[in-house]
Structure formats: C-alpha cells, structure tokens
C-alpha cells in the first residue's frame, strides 16, 4: 500500500468521524453489525485542545480558547491499531471511531466505507449545502441608483 496515499485517506475518515453526529454514527455502526474484539491501548478519555487562530487571519498564531475532544486507542486481535479523536465528550463515540479506524486498515474496509463512512460524508455535505444555500439567498444585489432625468 502506498503510505502517503493511505495517510491522506486515513486523515479523511478520521476527520469525518471527529465531527460526526454521535447518534447517527452509532446508528450506522450498529447497522454495519460487526463489533470486533479489541483491547484498549488507551481507554477513552476526554480532554481539551487549545484552538489557535492567526492575527489578522494570516499572521502570527494566538490561542483562542479550548474545545473538548475525546480520544481512544485500541488494537484488534490481529494487532491492527485504531485511533479515535472526536469532538465533544462522548467516550462511546471515540471508541466507535477507533474501531472504524482499525477496521479501515483491514479487509473490512470497503464494506465499512459503504455502510458508515459514505453515508456520513454524504449527509455532512448535504448539511453544508443547505446552509450555503440559505446564505446564498441572503446575498445582497446592489442596484446603482440613477437620477430621474439628465
């Protein structure tokens, strides 16, 4: 497997899992059906990450404030290691994310992608499009005012 390609792909699914709605992720995960045996390398734990911005949007960094993040690491029985880093404080969500990350590195990848990741990605895009469409409807069209007569 090309490792650079793999990292890019892995970044994609880990990112998608991080901001997924917990209820929906749980539903899709249960729908997938298989819950592999695994051992925690790091039991799910909640913590904070300092979010940074840049001065003027593009300059030097500064600390804006923290956000809650929960992480988890586990190993499948074949030794495959999965990591979950998810927004919020749900330990269950972090555990599912780590399991998905582990299984995505196994032969179950394609089935899992179809059952969990593809619907998540699609729904996320649809949500973004809905907001963008509402924003677009509030875009101002300026009309140059013309005097009544020359």
């Amino acid at each position, binding site marked *: 497997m090309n490792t650079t390609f793999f*990292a890019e792909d*892995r*970044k994609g699914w*880990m*990112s998608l899992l*991080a*901001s997924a709605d917990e209820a929906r992720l749980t539903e899709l995960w249960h729908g997938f059906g298989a819950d592999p045996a695994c051992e925690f390398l790091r039991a799910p*734990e*909640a*913590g*904070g*990450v*300092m*979010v*940074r*911005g*840049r*001065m*003027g*949007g*593009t*300059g*030097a*960094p*500064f*600390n*804006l*404030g*923290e*956000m*809650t*993040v929960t*992480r988890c*690491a586990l190993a499948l029985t074949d030794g495959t290691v999965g*990591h979950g*880093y*998810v*927004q*919020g*404080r749900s330990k269950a969500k972090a555990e599912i994310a780590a399991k998905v990350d582990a299984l995505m590195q196994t032969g179950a990848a394609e089935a899992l992608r179809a059952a969990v990741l593809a619907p998540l990605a699609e729904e996320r895009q649809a949500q*973004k*499009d*809905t*907001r*963008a*469409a*509402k*924003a*677009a*409807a*509030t*875009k*101002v069209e*300026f009309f140059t005012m013309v005097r009544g007569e020359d």
Partner: protein
Amino acid sequence: MYVAVKGGERAIENAHAWLAEERRGSKEVSELSLAQIREQLSLAVNRVMAEGSLYDPDLAALAIKQSRGDLIEAIFLIRAYRTTLPRFGCSKPVETGKMACDRRISATFKDAPGGQVLGPTFDYTHRLLDFKLAADGEVPEAAVAEPRREATPHITEFLQGEDIIEREPFSDAEPGDLTREPMSFPAGRAVRLQSLARGDEGFILGMAYSTQRGYARNHAFVGELRIGCVPVEMEIPELGFAIEIGEVELTECETVNQFKGSKTVPPQFTRGYGLVFGQSERKSIAMALVDRALRWEELGEDNVGAAAQDEEFVLSHADNIQATGFLEHIKLPHYVDFQSELELVRKLRREAEELAQTLAAREAAE
C-alpha cells in the same frame, strides 16, 4: 485578613436546596431540556463558550440551566470544568479564509468578491416585539439559492494587492498562553488577543465604544465581518500527521483604520482583529477596535492616555470571572477585619474629641 469560621452548614445546605427549587421554578411549567437551550438560546450558549474559553455547546447549555440564566455564573462553571480537562495539545491555527460563511459583510467594499451575505442577522429588523412568539409559532422555511462552493477570500487581500494596508507578518512563533503562564506586562499581541477573546463582552464593548468617542485616535471601518464554521486540525503525534478533530463556529472581524504614517512607515491603513467562538458579532467588532487601540506603540503612535491604549488596564480588568470573584468576595464574612476597623475608627474619634476638648479648654482659658 481571612479567618476560618465554623457553623452555618445546615443553613448552607438548606439554602442550596431552595436554590435548586427556585432554579426549577414552577412545576406547572415543563422543564427546559439542554437541547432546547442549545438550539433556541444559541447566542447565550455562544457567549458562555467564548468567555468560558471552551467550545462545547452541550456543556454551555448545561451551565446556563444550572446558573438559572446568569451567564457570568455559567461562564464560571465552564472555566472551573475546563481546568479539570487534560490538555491533549494545540490545534494548527484555523484557516478563516476557508470558512463556510453563513454571513459575510464589508462596510468598505460594496462589490467585494464573494458578495455581501447577510446571513441570519438582527440588522434591519425593526426591534419591535413579536407577540406571535408568545404563542407557539411555526416558522416558515428560509429561502434558498444556488450555494457558493468556493472559499470566500478575505477583503484585506485586495487592499494588500495595492500595498496600501499593513501586512500581517506570517510566523509560526509559539504564542503565550495566559491559562498556563501568569500574565505579565507588556503582554504582547498574542496574549492580548487571547485575553480579549475570553474577556467580558460588556467590558470590551465599553472600551471599544470609548475609542469611537475619541479616547484614542482610532477611526475604524469594518473591512470584513464573517461568521461560519471552520474545521480544526491538530497534529497527532502518534500518527505523524494532522487530522480534523472537529469543527467550530467562529465570528471574525477585521477593521481597517486610517494611519497617517510614522518615521519609518508611509501613510497606509492599519488593522485591528477580532476572533470569537460562536456567532458573537458585537464582541468581535469590539475586540478588533480594542486590539487596534492597544497597538499604538508598535505603530509609533502617541499614547494619548486613553484607557483603551493601556494594556495593563484593559487586560487586568477584561476577565469577568476574576472581576466577579474579587468583587463578590467582599460580601463574605470579614468580621475580624471589620472589628479592627471599628476599633480604629473609635480610637480616631476619641482622639478627635479629646483634641476638640483640649482646644476648647485652651480657648476658654485665654
């Protein structure tokens, strides 16, 4: 002087029980759910996240419920909770240029590429109470149009093209963190921005307003105001690459301020910057104005003695949790201090009376 006092446990317990009952209010009225607070009081939730300095809408909703809607008390709860969280690390700086904008306006350029997008704003409402909301009203669906797919560029980029606005020097310097190192002065712009971002909205607003009324020369235009979601990325050391760990809603304000120039810099526009968690428009504009006023020294401007130019004054008084803690502690028992004060005043009065008597006796004798 602090003196331990014993007793009052039963009174305190009973006070807490009554507080819980009062918080709940009449049981004839159904209880608020956290989801209701999060969804329907979202600007209060945003303020608690911004000033609590922790982005977590569900936690902020809980804090608002527990504090009976006292937002400073809610911020206090969030700050206390925040200190219990292990710090996993720091994000990469968010890229606001890639924001999915719900709102994006410019007061300086009518035809800004990307357009003027009003978003869900209170502006242009008539500020008339809507009595329909007193009854449960169904809300019509908002209108939609063809969505913009590409990123919306920052307005200042266009001014930068003409080289007529100062450039933000890019760096990856490690910024100071006031939650880790006690603040010392001069604090530097990174710590100033952190302090303003978590500072009290009312205080920052008052400071900003003072600059507009002439207490610091600082005529600002809102070059751009944008509200929307940005992904947050963090390097994961055990992976060796960065992933998105979530998404936050931000309000960003960039002001453009006229600058007559200095010995080393030609006349140009200078910048003030505001960035706040959530949809917090007033706060971000105020933050940008105060940021700009505090930059007088690096820009070679005169210190006219305005409060908003005084970094130590602004940063030391911006935090509402520090302020309320110190302010409210004076209502707690100070019996021993007061006893000594009482003794002192009695003694002074005795001395004054004795002096008056002596003077009167001397006058009578003369």
